[in-house]
Every structure is written in C-alpha cells, then in structure tokens.
C-alpha cells in the first residue's frame, strides 16, 4: 500500500488501528514488562480472616531469608504517618493493618526482596497472630442489632452504616402511588462482580534518592488524578511525582483507585533507595481490588391500568465492604444511580440509598459503567418487563407507551437529570424489525403450546456518561474536565497529548481522526500520546465512557483554534483577506478561485518560517474542556433465549443491539466496544459472581471459580446504529464504551423471565445459572 493510498482518516471512517503495530509483534509495553537497574520485588502478606484483631506481627523469620531486603509492617508505615490513606469517597482505608483486619485479603505486611520468588517465599514466613472476630457478609447483618462494629477505628462511628442518600420528590411519589391502579414490585440483588482485566494491577515505584523525584509506573486509568492523590497521601511535592501509565491490559474501572500496594511500594522505594515493583497475582486482584455492584434493590412501579407509568419508588442497601472506597464523583454517594427512571417519562420518582460496611473487600468501582448507572438501568428495565407481564401488555408496547418522546428533549427527569437528546422509539423500532419481533412472538406462542420455554428479552437503556460538568462532578474536589494539547510541527505532522488514558479503546486512532477531520492533517500523520503526567496536560482520566465526551471535545476545540490561526497564516501567504478564505478539509482557498489555495501543511510550515508581522510563531495549543452537560447515549437490545426444561440450561440464541451514541468517529472501534460490553454483560447475567461463605471467605478468588465468558459460550451479536447527535458536544458524539454492559444484563435476564413467565416466575437473581433456572422450573412443577 502506498502512502498516497492511505485513507485520510476523518470522522466516520473505519480506519484500522495505529496502536496494533506494537501489540501484534509482542512489543507492547505493559507494567510488568518494565525492568529498571537494581529493581526489587514486593510481595504482600494478606489476612486469611475476614475480621480479626491483630495481636502481633513477627517478621524475624521472613527478614532472615536470603534475598530479603526489607519487611514492611503497619507499624513501620504508621511511623511515617502512612498506615492509613484517604479514599476517593472521603473515607479512610488501611494501607497496612495495624489494629484489625476487616476483610479476607487485606494487606497486613509486605516483603521486599531481590526476586519475585524470594519475596513470595518470605511473605509466607511472616507470622501474624490473629484473634478471629465474627464476620459480617451483607447489609442485613451489618444493620442487625448487636452487629459487631467493623469501623471501630473511626471516632463517632457507632454502627456499620455509612451513608443515607435520597433523590427525587417523596411527597409527589407517594401521592402518585395512592392514585395507581397497579403497583409492580421487584426485589433483586445485583451481585458483587469484578472487572477482572486480563492484566492485573501493579506499580513500579522509582524514587531517586539523589533528587527525591518519584517516577511511578502504574496501571492507572487516571494518572494525573493519581499524581495529585499521591501528593496528598505521601506529602511528596507534586512536581516531584511523575506518574507513567504504560500500555494497560484492560481496565474496566478496576484501575481507577489508589490501592495500598501502590503506597507501600512507593514508601519502600523511598526508604530503600531502589526501584520496587509490585504486580498483583490474579487472586490478589479478585479478592482485594475494586469490586463492582453489590446493590440490594427494591423497586416499585406505579401504573395506570393501560400501562402508563405514574411513579417509581426505589430503596436500596449498598454493600460497600470494609472501607468506603467507591471511585465516583464526590457529591453522589450512590453514584449516578438516580438516573433510574431510565428512558421513561415518569412524572414522579423517589430513591433512597443506604451504604453499609461489611467484612468484604472495599472499592466499589464502576465495572464498565458510569458510576452505578448499570444497577439503575437493570432495575428499571427488569421492572418494566415485569409490569408488562403483570398487566398482560406486550413488552415493546409498554415501553413505547412510556418513552420520553423524541420532541421532549432536552428533558428534565423526575430526579433532576437533563437528558441532552434521544429518540428511544427510533432505536426500539430498529431492534424490533431486525430481531423479527412479530415472528418471534408467533414462534413463542407455538412453543408454549408444546411446553417449550423460549423467551424474548428487551431492554431500552439510557446512559449518562462523560462527567463533568465540573460544577457538579468532581473527585476529591478535582473538577471532572479533560484536556488536549496539539502541536503541529513545521513539516505538517502533529502530536496530540491527552489527559485521558486508553486501556484498549483505541485512542491513538480515534483522537487522531478528530484532528484529521478538524485540522485536515491525515490521521496517519498525527501521533497521540497519553499516560505520562510530565508530558501531557492535566485530565481526570479514562473511565465512565468519558474520553470522547471530554478529551474528544477538547481535541476538536483545540484543532479548531489552530485552524483559525491557520486561516490568518493562509491569508498572509495568499495575500488575501481572511474573510475571503474558505476552508475545506486540509486546505484554505480564496472564494471563487479554488486553485488559489494553501494546504494545512503549507500553513504549518509558514507558522515557523514565514509569519505575518507581529504574529506569535508556532502552531501549538492546549484546551481544557469542561462539558456543559453529560451525554446520554441510549439504545434497545433484544435477546432471544431457549431454556432447556430438563436441565435449566439457557441458550442465548440471538442478541440484537441497536446503539445510539450520536456521531461515531470510528464505527469499527465503536462496534467492537459494543461487542465487548455485550460479552461482559452476558458474563454478569449468567456466570460472574464474587461470593462469600458465612465466615467471609471469598469464593471466586481465581478464574476457575470466577467464570468469565470464553469464545465457546459467548453468543454472536448483531449490531445496528441510529444516530442522534449530542447537541452540546462539538462533534455531536457521546460516550459508548459502556453502553452494552449497562444495557445488556437486563435484556438477557428479561429473556429468561419472559420464557418462564407462564410459570409465574418473576425474578431470578443474577448470575442466572442453570441450577437456579432448574430450581425455578422444578418448583413450578415442570418435569423433564
């Protein structure tokens, strides 16, 4: 392929990814691939108990092992005022336990040694004397009278309650319930799951003993924010901290928080004066770092007889684990859960949420989700399907009857969200047509006659992604904006530096395409850099589908600013008036005489070589973009399942996904994001769960117990698009990375419930495993 034949790579082109070059050759540079001279290795000693008092820690035997350089205990960390650290939710979390351990897997000590093997060997020889205490494994136990107090370290904390939070209008909601003809109720547990990126979390901390400069290579989705948090936690001056996120092997929210291992490794490097590497093994990842969900929810939907929705009432208990370490905007204790009215024009809604400490791992992260929107979307979509079943109305019809109408946007929801745009009916109609809904209903009726269980599941989700605006969305006070710095070189090639950080989303391609569109430089000539806080502008990072809404917008704006400077340069070169110039992608020309033109490359060269009198040289700039609103992607998913009456095995026969994320910058990448989300959503619906026994032992601590979908059971997907541009995003784009994980679990489960509806089955908690389905069939009297 010649250079001339390369695509320009503007918006809407499915160009192939630039970042593939290194990954295809095994030349990716992930955290554990980095080796520094003199580097030491760290292993963490973890609690085998869910709740226990520490009577003593004996490190003598471990310290005497060959290769061991240091054994770090909570006591040593306390001497440096680092035994505890603040969490992203305004709580505190133990770095290394000093008083008690509060979940199985909690960090108690760390061994630093000359090799990974030596560190692990010695970690097994640290003797910890525990007095085992009763464990609490759920909110019901946590709030029971006489329950053991988990956070006795916190002054004034008399029970295990963390927060109470409300949204919406209680009086209006109660009044609507009084008028309701029907009330449909659903209690369900959205189970604890784990993002489980294939690469675990880790750090290589390199504190230079001569200069005090701390270079922290870290698997972080938010390197700039982490730098600031580290400065606050450790007291190191922020200019002496450089966070470098190298290639990241998947994040899905797991790599947003600061984990104790990061702090210990940094402290160890500071004290020892050598680089210290810590990389989790899989069990450490699953039992101690950011889990997701674990919401016990009860929803009630008030309806008129004709299926019109009158009001929604939700109460929920959140299981937050031993420390309140949710990674979410500070103002919202239950994340963005109050988007729970979803796609429906509900006149009234009221939500109450209560968080509880339990003896489980902390760190509720948004597993491919915008801060609890997944739980919200699941609840409303399950309720709507149950309402359809109860009222004898078709699932699609009840949705169409209650959707926020297309002409009602911008729409203010009953809980105060301002939806920017939507066409819910449009996406629904595409989904019904593509899945062949009418034929499926006929097929289902025939199969029901024959005693076969086939189900059709629908879910019409609305997401809320792209935090901020900074006025309402912040993390520890840091406003959730993002940034882009664009430097156009004299030869017309460019480098774009961003505050966000890809973990597989294809930023090096997608963001180059925005420059290609807006500034006319071919995408192949724009390199994209992220992840090094010394060399990129400040930003809040990549999670909650926010990169395109924030950094994408910043890239468009800075490209346009440079284009306007380019216009002045072109006018100078063409000896024409600025207002006489027209722009078409890649060149300015004089109106009426298109052959009198200068390309963006001519203009870039002139910016360094031939400037008009008084103009500042160069063609570079930075823009910080604080979005005016969130973006609200949406869609309808339709799933068809067949349930085996003998075994309870659910076979997912069809998955039709219609997504509307506004303007698609690279449709190939968008579609693949949706494939991934549909797969993770399938895993959550059918296989993934972190469970605990009554003593708080974590069941699900490796990939033999925590079941991720493989190619064999993952269904095939049929994906379609509608396009409703965001009215406030410069490109009309919305976030999309998480839509499918948010929207699909309800569609999968609704399909199973639809299959079993004639038996009176209205709920099976996720994961919907064949044994649960089998039990539901048997208790309804179904025999083989």
């Amino acid at each position, binding site marked *: 392929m010649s250079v001339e034949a390369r695509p320009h790579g503007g918006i809407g082109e499915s160009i192939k990814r630039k970042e593939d070059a290194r990954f295809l050759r095994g030349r990716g540079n992930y955290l554990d691939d980095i080796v520094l001279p003199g580097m030491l290795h760290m292993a963490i000693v973890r609690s085998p108990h869910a709740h226990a008092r520490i009577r003593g820690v004996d490190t003598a035997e471990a310290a005497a092992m060959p290769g061991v350089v240091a054994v770090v205990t909570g006591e040593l960390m306390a001497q440096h005022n680092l035994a505890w650290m603040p969490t992203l939710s305004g709580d505190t979390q133990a770095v290394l336990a000093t008083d008690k351990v509060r979940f199985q897997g909690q960090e108690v000590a760390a061994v630093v040694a000359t090799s990974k093997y030596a560190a692990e060997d010695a970690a097994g020889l640290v003797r910890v004397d525990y007095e085992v205490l009763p464990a609490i494994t759920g909110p019901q136990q946590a709030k029971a009278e006489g329950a053991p107090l988990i956070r006795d370290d916190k002054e004034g904390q008399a029970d295990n309650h963390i927060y109470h939070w409300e949204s919406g209008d209680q009086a209006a909601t109660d009044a609507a319930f009084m008028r309701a003809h029907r009330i449909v109720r659903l209690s369900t547990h959205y189970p604890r799951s784990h993002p489980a990126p294939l690469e675990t979390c880790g750090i290589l901390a390199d504190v230079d003993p001569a200069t005090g400069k701390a270079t922290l290579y870290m698997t972080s989705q938010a390197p700039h924010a982490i730098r600031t948090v580290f400065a606050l936690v450790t007291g190191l001056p922020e200019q002496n901290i450089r966070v470098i996120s190298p290639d990241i092997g998947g994040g899905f929210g797991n790599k947003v928080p600061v984990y104790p291992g990061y702090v210990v490794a940094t402290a160890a490097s500071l004290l020892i004066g050598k680089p210290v590497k810590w990389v989790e093994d899989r069990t450490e990842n699953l039992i101690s770092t950011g889990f997701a969900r674990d919401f016990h929810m009860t929803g009630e939907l008030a309806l008129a007889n004709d299926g019109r929705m009158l009001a929604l009432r939700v109460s929920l208990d959140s299981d937050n684990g031993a420390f309140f370490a949710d990674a979410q905007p500070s103002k919202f204790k239950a994340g963005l859960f109050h988007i729970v009215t979803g796609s429906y024009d509900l006149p009234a809604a009221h939500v109450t949420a209560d968080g509880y400490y339990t003896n489980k791992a902390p760190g509720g992260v948004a597993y491919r989700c915008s801060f609890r929107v997944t739980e919200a979307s699941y609840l409303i979509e399950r309720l709507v399907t149950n309402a359809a079943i109860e009222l004898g109305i078709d699932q699609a019809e009840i949705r169409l009857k209650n959707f926020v109408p297309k002409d009602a946007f911008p729409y203010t929801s009953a809980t105060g969200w301002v939806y920017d745009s939507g066409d819910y009916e449009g996406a629904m109609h595409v989904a019904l047509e593509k899945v062949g809904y009418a034929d499926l209903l006929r097929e289902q009726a025939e199969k029901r006659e024959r005693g076969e269980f086939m189900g059709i599941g629908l879910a019409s989700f609305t997401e809320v992604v792209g935090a901020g605006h900074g006025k309402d969305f912040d993390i520890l006070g840091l406003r959730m904006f993002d940034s882009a710095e664009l430097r156009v070189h004299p030869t017309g090639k460019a480098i774009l530096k961003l505050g966000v950080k890809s973990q*597989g989303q294809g930023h090096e391609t997608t963001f180059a395409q925005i420059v290609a569109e807006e500034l006319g430089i071919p995408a192949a000539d724009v390199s994209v850099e992220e992840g090094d806080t010394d060399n990129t502008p400040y930003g809040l990072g990549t999670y909650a589908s926010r990169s395109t809404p924030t950094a994408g917008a910043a890239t468009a704006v800075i490209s346009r600013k440079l284009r306007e400077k380019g216009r002045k340069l072109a006018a100078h070169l063409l000896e024409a008036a600025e207002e006489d110039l027209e722009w078409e992608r890649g060149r300015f020309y004089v109106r009426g005489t298109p052959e009198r033109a200068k390309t963006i490359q001519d203009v870039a060269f002139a910016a360094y070589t031939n400037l008009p009198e008084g103009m500042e040289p160069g063609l570079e700039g930075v823009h910080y973009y604080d979005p005016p609103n969130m973006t609200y992607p949406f869609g309808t998913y339709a799933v068809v399942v067949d349930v085996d009456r003998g075994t309870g095995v659910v076979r997912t026969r069809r998955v039709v996904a219609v997504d509307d994320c506004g303007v698609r910058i690279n449709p190939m990448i968008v579609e693949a994001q949706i494939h991934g989300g549909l797969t993770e959503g399938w895993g959550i619906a059918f296989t993934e769960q972190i469970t605990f026994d009554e003593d708080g032992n974590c069941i699900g601590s490796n990939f033999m117990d925590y079941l991720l979908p493989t190619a064999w059971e993952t269904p095939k997907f049929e994906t379609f698009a509608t396009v409703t541009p965001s009215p406030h995003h410069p490109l009309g784009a919305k976030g999309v990375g998480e839509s499918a994980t948010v929207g699909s679990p309800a569609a999968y489960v609704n399909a199973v419930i639809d299959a079993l509806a004639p038996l009176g089955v209205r709920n099976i908690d996720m994961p919907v495993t064949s044994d649960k389905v089998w039990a539901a069939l048997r208790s309804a009297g179904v025999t083989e």
Partner: protein
Amino acid sequence: MNVTVTINGEERSADVEPRVLLVDFIRTNLALTGTHIGCDTSSCGACTVLIDGEPVKSCTQLAVQADGRSITTVEGLAHGAQLDPIQVGFHEEHGLQCGFCTPGMMLVCRALLDRNPDPSEDQIRWAISGNICRCTGYMNIVKAVQHAARAGAAPEPAPAEVAQS
C-alpha cells in the same frame, strides 16, 4: 540448573532454579516480554507459547520441562517486515483492543491453522476457548482467523498502519 531452548529459531540458555516457571524463564531470563501472565492457574491463556508447534500454557510448566525443545513466542511470528497472516488478520478484522491476550491468542490460532487450514466457526471458537479475551467479545477474533485462513500460510507484507517505520 541449565536450561537450553531454541526460541524463535535462536538457541538460548540460562541457569535457573528447578522451580522456575517457563513463563518467568521466557520473560525474565530471556527478556521476551510479549508472553504475558494473566491468571496463574492456566485458565486465561495469556501465557500461551508453542512448544514444538503445540500450544502450551507457560505459567503451568517448569522451565526445565522445556529443556531441549523448540519454542515459538509472539516475537517469533513475524519474519522481519513480513507478518504472519494471523497477525494481519487480527489487524484487519480489529481482533485486538488492549492487546494483552493477543500474543497467546494469535499463537493458538496459528497452531489451529497449521493443523486445520480451513476451520469452521465452531472449530475456531473451540480452539480459542482456553484463552480469555476481556475486550473483544471474540467475534472479531473469529473473523481474524477466517481472514488468515483465506490468506494461507505465506507471510504477508505489513499493512501501512502497522509497518515498521
């Protein structure tokens, strides 16, 4: 103990403890970091390499077991500027996102195509079912294998976006 292997056509040896895992030997002693560690329990396949052409999860084999054998890692798939058709397939069909599972995944696919040059979709899905990908949902990986199957076994020039500069 001394372990000698032929890795990507080159003879390499190192002294290691008998307990050292093959994956650590490859990554640490031989400094070939394209082979990854994902789970430690042979569940995810990120550590997959080919030993005498057969896929092996190198996190659950000892280095000493590979003594005298021939190993192919992801670094050995390309022939200079020419890519293996499976690499071209993964690129053209967008079969990778974060790239972490990609080396193991491509090696399993290479071994599949070596024994079955024209696999069905079910055969592809079964062959890669020991390797977990968290990003792609597998559909594009299936297409990547089909793309490579159409191309045959001969190395191909790298497409421009991924050509070595």
